[in-house]
């Protein structure tokens, strides 16, 4: 459903390309993992797909095809119709990703407000449904709360609700659990699995942690310094890493965790 062809991104302020020729495919309904150490270009790849590149401050080339539709070079006004509607994004820090002065409810509804002309009551119903779907206790109460009144884990659930409320085809998750503690992280991973199984929404799940990706993703791609160094079934990559960089990433996982994760 999504195909990235030979994506290059170079920020004017940098000498090196942030993304130096990445080609990736996300299939219908799959969760693709994207791993690599910090600064390897994972976020820039995802931002290119989400239409969030600062176009005036970088050079970019290649193609991003969503069901055959090119996104990288279309005008902003065209892009806006796809942002949120077809592609939802969840960021790393839910606290800063939310508008601190707006209640959760309106933020969850925002994407509906932008893309669909729905009566207020219907929007509210859908928002409550989404808050329910991300397993937040007491959606009615959460709806009326401000971001600072919720914990990080609850906020991230609300962010996911805000992304899925309109039922996009693709969800980009940029390290959505990195800022959360381990138990909450596990819960969010379970939730994502459930949402994927339930609605068939495709996901690009970014993490610098290979063991997290392993619990969620069928396939994984590994990035290093702007390049894709390895791609394949998660289990294959995990047990028979071909690239030395992948081997190092796996070696970096604490052994206890590695054994626990083994099927």
């Amino acid at each position, binding site marked *: 459903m999504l195909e990235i062809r030979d994506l290059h991104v170079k920020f004017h302020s940098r000498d090196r390309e942030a993304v130096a020729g990445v080609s990736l495919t996300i299939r219908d309904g799959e969760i693709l993992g994207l791993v690599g150490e910090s600064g390897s270009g994972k976020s820039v790849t995802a931002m290119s797909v989400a239409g969030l590149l600062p176009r005036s401050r970088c050079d970019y080339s290649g193609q991003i095809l969503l069901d055959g539709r090119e996104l990288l070079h279309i005008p902003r006004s065209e892009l806006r119709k796809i942002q949120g509607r077809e592609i*939802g994004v969840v960021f790393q820090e839910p606290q800063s990703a939310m*508008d*601190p002065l707006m209640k959760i409810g309106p933020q969850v509804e925002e994407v509906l407000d932008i893309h669909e002309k729905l009566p207020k009551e219907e929007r509210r119903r859908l928002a409550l449904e989404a808050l329910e779907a991300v397993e937040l206790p007491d959606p009615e109460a959460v709806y009326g709360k401000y971001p600072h009144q919720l914990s990080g884990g609850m906020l991230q659930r609300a962010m996911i609700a805000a992304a899925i409320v309109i039922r996009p085809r693709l969800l980009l998750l940029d390290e959505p659990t990195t800022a959360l503690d381990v138990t909450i992280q596990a819960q969010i991973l379970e939730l994502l699995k459930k949402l994927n199984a339930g609605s068939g929404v495709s996901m690009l799940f970014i993490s610098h942690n290979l063991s997290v990706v392993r619990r969620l993703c069928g396939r994984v791609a590994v990035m290093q310094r702007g390049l894709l160094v390895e791609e394949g079934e998660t289990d294959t990559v995990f047990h028979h890493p071909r690239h030395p960089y992948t081997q190092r990433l796996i070696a970096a996982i604490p052994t206890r965790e590695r054994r626990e994760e083994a099927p």
Partner: protein
Amino acid sequence: MKYAAKKIAAMLLTMVVVSLLTFTAFSLISGDAAEIMLGTQVTPERLAALRSELGLDRPLPARYLSWLLGFFTGDLGMSLQYHQPVRELIAPKVLVTLCLSVLCFLLITAVSIPLGLWSASRSGEALDGARTVVNQLCMAVPSFFTGILLSWGFGIALKWFMPGSFPDLGEDFFGAVKYLFFAAVAIAIPRVAMTVRMLRGTILTEMQKDYVRTAISRGAPRRRVLYRHVLKNSLAPVVTFLAQTMAEIVAAGIVVEQVFVIPGLGRILVASISNRDYLVVQAIVVILAFWVVLANTAADIINQRIDPRLRLGGDA
């Protein structure tokens, strides 16, 4: 609501402290009012008699309390210079000066918020430099000078108002407002420039925040991002800034009132200072201080309405 009540309590306390300090300071510097009234060639008996008549023989706290009581009941004592109750003397002038400050404040708010938004959304364009120059020019030119130009241009040349013949507020309210308007413009110009610069800076900082990226990722057009998210987040510092501006408006007003021959507090304040008519000066200082404290309290309460994080006890 609880928050507002607390703020108002704090405001009242501040007012008490301000008035106490002012009163004490004036008691120290003003010397003996009885002596000033009677001159030096006088018998000690007459002096003592007048002192007790004026209540000057009582201790300071007692005098302060009776003065404060008088302040709120409208009894501010007698002006030494004009031999008139201070209240009668300044009441109409207080009204004029408050009108001028409010008008000026509204002007600053109404002009600088749209201008700040416009300037922020045009940032990075070729004309950005020119806008900065205009802004700094407006900030640099003192209000009394702009006042002289406006008074000459709109008053003497265009005759849109008659400098020197200020219409009575009660009889010709709109005429008076029209007259005050030009003085308000003179005071407002540098403050508008400052507010625009600060709002622009705040907006540009807010634009870099993550929640803006979130809104864009949802397909929000630029206008929506600006008006639904960024503006509200940029408003709290501006409200605080505008409240602080109130003190400057009052201070600038004292000078500009002279330029425009406005019968406000400025003129009588200056006259009373040079005549050592301290009861009048003291009353005016306290009134102006209260006005500024009131503006700041209002700003705090407004900010608390804007930003739920400032609300105590999470009563959102």
